[in-house]
């Protein structure tokens, strides 16, 4: 069972009910649960969307798209039914924040789904968890069943004539790619999880061809809190153009790893050295991957920036999924780059050639390089490959593999060069087999 952690600098909004037994519906109701959705029914869709817009909430899955705006893109009228889709296919390495939401506050996700449904005029919502989260699915399933039993879901919810909402829950079966919104829709339609071309965007043509709002689970779980406290009050908790708070999962070489809720714009340095207790065993910091493994790495002297979407972009990286992975001085960047790329190579769905071939060649080259068969040209080749993947695929997986690669090469080129000279910190246990024949990977020299 995941350990709950806390720190005085935390501002608890979405994690307010963690550790209080709020997975039980009566406890959730006692802690202001299901009040926001009833306010939403009274006040109407326009009020919900305006409140969400005022909150400055931006998508917590990683892209940071303003939630209120996303909801407003859904056409008012539609021949096909509209849907709300909750993305709980949390798979970005370094990210485990939705894990704790489903565990401690599943009703907040359910209530948020209903609020999104009211906002766009949908009568059905889906909560899709990653396949590995079966025990969490059971918790969410029970919460949904309890909500039906109370008359909060189903026909005429809360006794309001003509207000209907249903929720279906399920898991995936192991595929990082399905965390991409259009691939998730494919998966939910019982197909291989490959991305769809955009446009049309899901807000117009989504699940089953109907207009669909798809949000990350944390984004959705914020909605009830925002309606209760008001959009402006939520916005004020964060930084400029980055409303509110966010769950940050701090992992790797820190003394107190865990999921902490910090205001948007909070200092990355303080998050590592104060909130998470600093570097493990008194070692020195080497690098930080600030928002899940697809974000370009930051060097130890680049962590004086604020944790919000804009400040991280300014620092040349991304806030991503909020998974902060901390690396101490003992880590070999060649090895870390190889492990990162090995993941994307494994998870590329193969739909687009730049991603399928690009990740494969990156892994081949890095594997040979790591094994000691590298040459100086490889470093440029890795960069060239990654540059040519950027922006050339249906979905962001190609970029997700290319961006950290470019970061490693740009920030740690000298370490790659030293590695060629034999200054190596090889991991004694990593034996990743090259993809295909070694000769094919150019190791014949």
């Amino acid at each position, binding site marked *: *069972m*995941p*350990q709950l952690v806390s720190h005085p600098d935390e501002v608890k909004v979405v994690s307010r009910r963690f550790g209080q037994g709020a997975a039980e519906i009566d406890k959730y109701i006692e802690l202001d649960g299901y009040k926001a959705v009833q306010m939403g029914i009274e006040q109407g869709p326009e009020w919900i969307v305006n409140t969400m817009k005022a909150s400055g909430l931006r998508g917590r899955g990683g892209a940071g798209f303003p939630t209120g705006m996303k909801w407003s893109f859904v056409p008012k009228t539609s021949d096909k*039914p509209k849907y709300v889709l909750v993305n709980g296919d*949390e*798979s*970005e*390495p*370094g*990210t*485990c924040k*939705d*894990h704790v939401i489903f565990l401690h506050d599943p009703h907040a996700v359910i209530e948020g789904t209903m609020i999104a449904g009211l906002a766009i005029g949908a009568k*059905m919502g889906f909560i899709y968890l*990653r*396949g*590995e*989260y*079966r*025990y969490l699915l059971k918790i969410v399933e029970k919460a949904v069943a309890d909500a039906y039993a109370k008359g909060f879901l189903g026909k005429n919810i809360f006794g309001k004539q003509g207000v209907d909402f249903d929720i*279906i829950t*399920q*898991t*995936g*079966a*192991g*595929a*990082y790619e399905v965390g991409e919104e259009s691939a998730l829709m494919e*998966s*939910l*339609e*019982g*197909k*291989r*999880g490959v991305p769809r071309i955009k446009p049309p965007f899901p807000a117009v043509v989504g699940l*089953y061809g109907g207009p669909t709002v798809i949000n990350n689970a944390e984004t959705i779980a914020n909605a009830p809190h925002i309606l209760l406290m008001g959009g402006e009050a939520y916005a004020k908790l964060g930084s400029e153009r980055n409303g509110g708070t966010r769950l940050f*999962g701090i*992992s*790797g*070489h820190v003394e107190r*790893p*865990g*999921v902490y809720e910090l205001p948007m714009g909070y200092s990355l340095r303080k998050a590592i050295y104060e909130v998470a207790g600093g570097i493990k065993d008194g070692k020195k910091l080497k690098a930080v*991957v600030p928002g899940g*493994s697809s974000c370009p790495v930051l060097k130890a002297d680049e962590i004086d920036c604020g944790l919000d979407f804009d400040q991280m972009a300014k620092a040349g990286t991304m806030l991503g999924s909020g*998974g902060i*992975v*901390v*690396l101490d001085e003992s*880590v070999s960047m060649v090895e*870390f780059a190889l*492990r*990162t790329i090995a*993941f994307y190579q*494994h*998870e590329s*769905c193969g739909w687009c050639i730049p991603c399928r071939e690009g990740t494969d060649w990156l892994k081949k080259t890095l594997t040979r390089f790591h094994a000691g068969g590298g040459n100086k040209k490889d470093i440029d080749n890795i960069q060239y490959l990654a540059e040519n993947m950027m922006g050339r695929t249906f979905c962001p997986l190609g970029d997700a593999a290319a961006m950290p690669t470019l970061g490693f090469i740009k920030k740690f080129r000298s370490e790659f060069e030293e590695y060629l000279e034999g200054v190596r910190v090889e*991991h004694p*246990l*990593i034996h990743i087999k090259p993809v295909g024949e070694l000769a094919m990977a150019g190791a014949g020299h």
Partner: protein
Amino acid sequence: MSTIASSIFTPDTAARFDKLATIYPLKRSALIPMLLYAQDEIGFVSDAAVAEISQRLDLLELDVRNVLSYYSMLRTVPAGKYNVQVCTNISCMLRGGYELLDHCKNKLGIGHKGVTPDGLFSLEEVECIGACCWAPAVQVNYDFHDDLTPAKMDAVLADYAAGRGKDVK
């Protein structure tokens, strides 16, 4: 309700499948959940399971196999009764994921995707399982074990070997 005259599944699972085929706007949406529950019951997705699921959802067996082959958690060969899945992705790697995998390999005497001769354990090196802040983490079937060391791992394996761990369902 069921269009299946004689299901290969237990009555509970068959009833669950009957219901799954009705709750979605399109029947086919039930495919991935059905494959997972079939695997939970049989230990893998057998040819007979593919045949019955395709019949239940009005799909070709080929359609089912196409989907089946895409998802990494679904398998067409049996695993051990307890499938030990060791994460070695970045957060776990930094806190000893590879040491843990190596320890499991030695302890169980099997490699990646191997099964012990008694069929009790199988071992898999897996990608991120979403337990990064409690690394290194291992999943045995669907149960998470967090913040492990080789010694703690031994205790976990001993619990399962002694029948004190949870089964798949």
